[in-house]
């Protein structure tokens, strides 16, 4: 029973704190991985942690490029007010209601109804909807969906998600590297410092394999937990913004009932969308790793508001 802040500013503060915690946790994880990688490649101890520097540069680069990458791989194109007056106006109005700067508006030419928001902060944000969404939804339903997406922007969810995605990608990359290194024997080179201590080498290898397997699992778990919570919250704040939860509820029903899969979505971008674009079969594990809460639960909650 956590009391939720009413004004967007307070929730932003809360999100900033969570982001800091997340960052600290992840950097610790990555630092640990760097040290293990360093040891496996045979770097002397004091220099091993320095390996984190190139990884951090990679992370920073992906952080600034992520919005454009997400939009590019979804095949989205930017639209102007003249091209899509109704869509543009709805976004404009909702931004006034939420006190947000106007984001860029993108459309994906795909018949499957879906939408997402991305960017690192409200000043660099973009909302993206599919052609199918514009065709299949009534104005009030579209408004509900857009309010949900703008809530992600206003709550800085997009930043948290961007950071999480970048760091999860990095963790996966490092784990991959580690597995390759241990199996293909970079550490077994002649001239390795650990020539004498067989037990120590084995210990490092066990550590490396354990880290390589566990790190992406932990990272994915964090990412999905964060993602699901935020969907409920964005539903709620979106409903506060439009004062009409029924609009989003009906939109979600339509989206869930739609048979078209979104062709441009993949595992990397699935968490961005308002509803999971990849129609997977529900199993326990899938539920645990699901990027979105079950849509029926969301509709039920919206109807109860």
């Amino acid at each position, binding site marked *: 029973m956590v009391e939720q802040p009413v004004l967007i500013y307070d929730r932003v503060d809360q999100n900033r704190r969570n982001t800091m915690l997340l960052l600290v946790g992840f950097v610790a994880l990555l630092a640990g991985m760097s040290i293990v990688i360093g040891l496996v490649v045979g770097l002397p101890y004091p220099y091993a942690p320095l390996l984190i520097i190139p990884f951090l540069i990679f992370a920073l680069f992906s952080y600034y490029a992520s919005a454009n990458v997400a939009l590019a791989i979804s095949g989205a194109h930017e639209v102007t007010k003249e091209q899509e007056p109704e869509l543009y106006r709805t976004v404009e*109005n909702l931004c*006034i209601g939420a006190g947000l700067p106007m984001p860029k508006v993108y459309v994906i030419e795909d018949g499957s109804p879906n939408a997402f928001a991305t960017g690192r902060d409200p000043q660099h944000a973009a909302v993206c909807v599919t052609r199918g969404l514009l065709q299949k939804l009534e104005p009030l339903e579209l408004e509900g969906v857009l309010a949900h997406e703008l809530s992600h922007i206003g709550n800085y969810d997009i930043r948290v998600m961007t950071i999480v995605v970048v760091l999860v990608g990095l963790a996966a990359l490092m784990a991959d590297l580690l597995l390759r290194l241990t199996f293909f024997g970079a550490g077994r080179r002649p001239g390795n410092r650990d020539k004498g201590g067989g037990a120590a080498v084995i210990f490092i290898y066990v550590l490396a394999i354990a880290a390589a397997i566990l790190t992406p699992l932990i990272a994915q778990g964090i990412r999905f937990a964060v993602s699901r*919570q935020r969907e*409920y919250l964005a539903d709620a704040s979106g409903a506060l913004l439009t004062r009409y939860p029924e609009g989003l509820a009906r939109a979600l029903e339509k989206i869930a009932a739609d048979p078209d899969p979104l062709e441009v979505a993949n595992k990397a971008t699935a968490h961005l969308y308002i509803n999971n674009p990849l129609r997977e079969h529900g199993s326990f594990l899938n539920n645990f790793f699901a990027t979105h809460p079950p849509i029926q639960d969301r509709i039920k909650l919206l109807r109860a508001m």
Partner: protein
Amino acid sequence: MFVVIIVLAVLLGVVLIAGLAFLGIYNGLIRSRVRTNEAWSGIDVQLKRRASLVPNLVETVKGYAAHERVVLENVTRARAALEQAGSPGQAAQADNALTQTLRSLFAVAENYPQLRANENFLALQQELSDIEEKIAFARQFYNKNVMDFNARIQVFPNVFIAHMFNFQPFEFFEAEEAAREDVQVSFSSTTAT
């Protein structure tokens, strides 16, 4: 001697903490006030846009329905009242009056097929209804900020500072009728994990 130093240190600590708390509260109030003023200018921009479209609309209607003088005069008068309105409360009242007169103007326009076919008229009608919606959203944002600020200057430690620096509560910008019902959002069931 030793006791005196301890007492002084404790006193200094208390003063320091009180000073920091004071600073925090004062800055928080100022920030909240700036935000509310900003939210107000969000409404004000739309009100000005709306008022600036009215003369154009009146001219267009006159071209087709010059003898609907009463309706046209009402609109012009409501616009003038809106431009003179000072406080948010007055502005809200004047804006609601303008909404009413515009509504009757558009109702009258229904009787003039040629006017209804006029492109300029249609564009103005659409733009005005868009502005009306934007005002509704801007009002929502402003009122939320007002609620937050007014609550802040009334709660316990803040109330002294608010008095000291003469922080006044803001007026709400009230709509004539609730176009959309209020929603009660309960977060408690959604955040439990």
